């Protein structure tokens, strides 16, 4: 595993007050590939200096949206407006957008310094100016001592930091990050994640970040745009997305949810013989057979010899322990503190209880998406 040098960012970042980033407006974007509509009337407004994350499963159109913004994809219809100027037909090289790619995109024939200086060279800056600025940026990302190294001599994390410096060197109006952390190992990913966020906040640069990693999104973004099949499911703050998902898709994609078949009784449902109010919004429009989508922390358990459920699986997650509780034909996930969870053996009888103030409903027949983060794969109940 590659460990990166610890760097005190605050001492290295520019001291001048940051200029506000550019406002970005994506208006009714449509992009099709053959019969697939990668973007289907996609509209999103990003505030100046905002860190917006595009989150969704593979094929949801998040990368296409980013590439459209960068100018690498031609739109079928719609507009890309930055600071009030329509850039839809402007060449990528004239858009002033810095991009960091998923794959290490450093130019292999250039060392770190020349990679960072490349954009300045394209802008016909003098050699002394571009060398000075490139060195400043290398210092900013904590890699001043790596200036003479070539990409193949650097670790993945270092390469991505150089790529970030290179993207920032041209002082872009918008910074585009296309899954820049996905190829890195866990420790480097966390470190670089913090560094990117810190830099973004200091420079107040409008940033669009594409990822399928929920943890990255929840920890980095000002707002999250959850996408599915080329359109937006929900745009909200990370906390809101997690705690108050507006659609079943969001509830299932962000975080972990167990589906529990319920009977509707007005604006209430009965789960584990307990009456629970239905969440307003999409849930309230669900009629007929429905499933409640329950987060592990929406359910509490009590160890009881008369309990209706029993523990079938147990996963240690650090501070928390995740239990899978079988109640009749249903399986639900429950998170408990690890000091409590360590005392619970497989097969222990427990009584589950809903502790959420309201529950999100989804139509019973809805096709479930794969719960990528689940320890045991999608844990769904049969009808």
């Amino acid at each position: 595993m590659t460990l990166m040098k610890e760097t005190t960012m605050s001492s290295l970042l520019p001291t001048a007050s940051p200029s506000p980033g550019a406002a970005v407006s994506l208006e009714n974007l449509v992009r099709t590939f053959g019969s697939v509509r990668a973007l289907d009337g996609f509209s999103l407004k990003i505030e100046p200096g905002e860190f917006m994350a595009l989150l969704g499963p593979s094929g949801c159109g998040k990368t296409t949206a980013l590439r459209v913004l960068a100018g690498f994809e031609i739109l079928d219809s719609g507009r890309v407006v930055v600071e009030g100027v329509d850039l839809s037909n402007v060449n990528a090289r004239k858009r002033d957008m810095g991009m960091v790619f998923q794959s290490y995109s450093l130019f292999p024939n250039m060392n770190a310094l020349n990679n960072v200086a490349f954009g300045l060279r394209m802008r016909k800056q003098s050699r002394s100016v571009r060398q000075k600025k490139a060195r400043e940026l290398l210092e900013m990302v904590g890699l001043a001592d790596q200036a003479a190294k070539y990409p193949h001599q650097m670790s993945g994390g270092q390469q991505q930091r150089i790529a970030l410096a290179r993207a920032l060197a041209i002082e872009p109006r918008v910074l585009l990050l296309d899954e820049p952390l996905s190829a890195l190992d866990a420790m480097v990913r966390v470190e670089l994640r913090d560094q990117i966020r810190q830099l973004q906040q200091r420079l107040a640069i409008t940033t669009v970040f594409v990822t399928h990693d929920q943890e990255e999104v929840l920890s980095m973004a000002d707002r999250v745009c959850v996408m599915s099949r080329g359109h937006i499911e929900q745009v909200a703050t990370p906390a809101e997305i997690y705690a108050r998902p507006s659609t079943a898709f969001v509830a299932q994609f962000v975080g972990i949810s167990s589906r529990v078949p319920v009977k509707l009784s007005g604006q209430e449902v009965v789960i584990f013989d307990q009456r629970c109010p239905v969440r307003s919004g999409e849930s309230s429009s669900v009629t007929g057979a429905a499933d409640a989508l329950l987060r592990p922390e929406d359910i509490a358990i009590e160890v009881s010899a008369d309990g209706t459920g029993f523990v079938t699986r147990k996963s240690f997650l650090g501070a928390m322990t995740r239990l899978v509780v079988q109640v009749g034909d249903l399986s639900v996930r429950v998170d408990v503190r690890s000091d409590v969870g360590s005392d619970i053996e497989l097969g222990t009888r427990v009584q589950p209880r809903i502790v959420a103030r309201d529950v999100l409903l989804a139509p019973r027949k809805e096709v479930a998406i794969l719960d990528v983060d689940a320890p045991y794969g999608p844990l769904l109940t049969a009808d």
Partner: protein
Amino acid sequence: MAPLVEVAEAENEVVPNFSTGSSKRRRRVRWWRGVVLVLTGAFFLIPIYAGIKFSLQNTEGHFSFQAYEKLPSAPGFTAALTLSLKIAFVTMVVSTLLMVPTAIYVHVRLPRLRRVLDVVTVLPIVIPPIVLITGVLGVFPLWAKSSPYLLSFMYVILAMPFVYRSLDAGIGAIDLKTLTEASRSLGGNWSKTMWRVILPNIRPALLSATVLTLALVFGEYTMAQLDLWQTIPVWIAQFQVSNDGPIQVAASMMGLVGTWVLLMVVVSIDRSQSRRNRKKLGAS
């Protein structure tokens, strides 16, 4: 978050040990590798050894550099060598100008056409050179046929399978699409992207394509002979002086060694340039 520790039923799983079997297999593979290497080496080196030995004999069968000493002054040799070099130069330039942008464009913009191009570029191997040159000589006007550089264009076609494959492998070894997009997002236009990003990164493939083209030009006989130009291969075949067989073979060996030396020179220039660049940047 993935579980750090998972408690489940199958805890005492026994993992079978395959280490003994795999190491035996590895030894067997190594042994076969050696055999293949020796056989292949013998296949290539024995004829070369025989050729060199023959060229180093005088008329009495004793060791001598006589053939190599006589070669430069042999009638027609210098003219044939000059002509071959000129044709090779034009072939390499035309081939590079034609194939490099094509291969790059197909990789970046039309990746679906790669299979078509794979098939098309094999055609010169399938179609005998005699068919190609007969067709060309029957169709082309006299002024074109009277120029030796018509051969260059024919050789571009003949070299296409090697040049395209070499470039295709070189381009495939780098993430061309991402590098191109990175350059564009930083303000690079196509010419700057090509010159500063793509070409330096496919330089080994480009050099390999160039050397292969050179080797082809110095080895092609049929087309040159039918087009009535005395290139080196034609000269070797036509050079008939009694008791001077070793000169012909010496010329062949010179061609072989010359191409090999050129390849080494090109590769070492490339390496030393890279090393120099690194030192320079390291010092700065």
